[in-house]
């Protein structure tokens, strides 16, 4: 009686049959793997779209896209190890933890695989051929300027705590704080006690009755914050301006309905394309820049419907 063996094997065979056969006589192609920070986030879907488009345009790149369903270094490590074993020549990766992923990527590098950091980076990037990411301090500063303008250059701004282990978040917060302290001295910053829990936002509002601005790092936080703000009395509610990162569809909808007031969008599609192009150059033996910063775009209700800005809304799929 081997029912479960049969069930497992037949399912595997179905998956196998669904994969297109690889032509053995195909011309030489550069095998590049893109490992996303998580496979369930619009930002990384957009990055994937950009990478796929670049691979198609270049013609001689065999791109595979992998990732884990959650932002978790211990889930990302086995993916890196499997990709390394499967013969990739270059790996572009958004590491889930700048230190925890050092060992598996070093092992990949020791096998001759070119490593490119995309979006996030290893704390020790000595063997990484290039890091492609938003200039997060600049993004934080841009968010600070946008929020300061919305707040009328006075009042109290609330910042949530740092998510563990993510290098980009710390840089954005530092950029934000530095900009406020340098050029918007009348704004006070509240930086502890907040969290992603809606009730904690409510507690922060109760403890700081003069909050008139919020700087949020991730889109789920912005939606939770928007919900918490709706609970406030109308006179307080109308005084709070929210600036957040990342133009996820749900957040853009919140922007259009004025639940939040501005979004600093990154350019994940550009990052994905640059990752493929940079990996290909490295494999061709060409020199590549050690660091490639990508910019950000401020999205507001005033400009979100213009094509030049609408293109930066993140995608839910590549079709």
């Amino acid at each position, binding site marked *: *009686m*081997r*029912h*479960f*063996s049969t*069930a*497992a*094997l037949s*399912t*595997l065979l179905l*998956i*196998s049959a669904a*994969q297109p056969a690889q032509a053995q006589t195909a011309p030489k192609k550069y095998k590049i793997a893109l490992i996303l920070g998580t*496979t369930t986030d619009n930002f990384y879907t957009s990055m994937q779209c950009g990478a796929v488009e670049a691979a198609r345009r270049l013609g001689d790149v065999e791109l*595979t*896209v*992998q*990732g*884990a*369903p*959650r*932002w*978790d*270094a*211990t*889930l990302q*490590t*086995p*993916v890196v*190890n*499997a*990709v*390394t*074993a*499967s*013969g990739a020549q270059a790996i572009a990766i958004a590491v889930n*933890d700048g*230190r*925890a992923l*050092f*060992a*598996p990527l070093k*092992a990949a590098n020791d*096998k001759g695989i070119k490593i490119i950091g995309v979006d996030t980076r290893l704390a020790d990037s000595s063997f990484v051929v290039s890091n492609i990411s938003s200039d997060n301090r600049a993004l934080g500063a841009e968010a600070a300027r946008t929020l300061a303008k919305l707040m009328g250059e006075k009042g109290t701004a609330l910042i949530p*705590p*740092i*998510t*563990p*282990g993510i290098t980009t978040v710390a840089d954005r917060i530092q950029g934000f704080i530095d900009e406020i302290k340098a050029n918007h001295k009348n704004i006070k910053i509240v930086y502890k006690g907040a*969290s992603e829990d809606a009730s904690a936002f409510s507690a922060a509002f109760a403890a700081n009755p003069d909050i008139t601005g919020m700087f949020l790092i991730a889109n789920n936080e912005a939606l939770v914050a928007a919900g918490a703000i709706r609970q406030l009395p109308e006179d307080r509610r109308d005084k709070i301006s929210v600036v957040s990162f990342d133009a996820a569809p749900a957040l853009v909808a919140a922007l259009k309905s004025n639940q939040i007031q501005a979004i600093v969008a990154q350019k994940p599609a550009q990052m994905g394309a640059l990752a493929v192009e940079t990996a290909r150059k490295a494999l061709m033996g060409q020199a590549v820049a050690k660091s490639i910063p990508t910019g950000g775009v401020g999205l507001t209700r005033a400009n979100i419907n213009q094509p030049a800005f609408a293109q930066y809304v993140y995608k839910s799929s590549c079709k």
Partner: protein
Amino acid sequence: MTTTRPTPPAPAKLALRRVLASQAMLTAGTLLVVMALFTALFPGKFATLYNIQTLMVDYSGIVLLGVGLTFIMTSARFDLSVGAVLVFSCVLGTQAMGALGGADGGWGAVLIGLIVCLGTGLLAGLVNGFLIVKARVPSIIVTLGTLSVAQGAAYVLTGGVDLYAVPKVMLDHIGQGKVLGLPVPIVVAALAVAIGSFVLSQTRFGQYTCATGSNAEAARRAGINIDRVAITLYLISGAGAGLAGFMSLARYGSTTLAAHQNDNLTALLGVVLGGTSLFGGTGTVVGTAVGVFIPGVLSNGLVMMQVLPYWQYIIVGIVLIAVVYIDLVKRRGRTEGG
């Protein structure tokens, strides 16, 4: 005055051995067939020293959790807290080593870190065991509560930010080190499996564990102190979580607060796939070690197939249901036959 335990009749003993053997054998057979399939699909890629070794390292922590859980489940109890206790032990261990030099700490700091991690696990195990045995709260509720406490404590102590004060000697020689050519995490897991397997199958304590899971009241009447057995079982499970925490620090150099959330379920899955009955009474540590690698191998192979590993969850779910169903059928057959 010692009461002589009646020797189980030969036919029943043979039947029990056959059940255990067939369950673990089916799982091992499945694992081998799946591995053979991936080997054929990806020649020179799947079945390589590098891939098999890193795969074993990747799941060595789950094996450590699985060893403890095998004991717990063989006694017809649950421990849902091991993943959270793992993280909590990482936090306390890192803080201890941070106070002794952090990244520049020496082997003395590493030893203290190990003691603190194990101590944390043992303390959690003692709390679990005490509440279950003395307060008579069901194990699933106690360990769910401990999970929450450990998780909360980890966040309170760190402020939600990962700690990185792990000695470099620990990262280099334990996390990435080798003994006789074998990665240290694999050696540690193998030793845990060997010791656990011996204890569960070859010692009086192991027999008491099986007896407790099979029929607690009969075991009590037979003179077994089932309360002491239960507390010891949770100490074993806690030690497994603490040791897994120490090894996680050695591998990742970080408390990885956001991680390990699925470790408990993954380990539980490995235990069940490995032939330990959800209803208690039978279990093998070696079976658990084999069972843990089924989701691991599937995930690894699916990445090579360039498929996002979501299919793994479907396949593993199907296999799990099939395994438990077969267990039920066998139990029903035995009961009716008896």
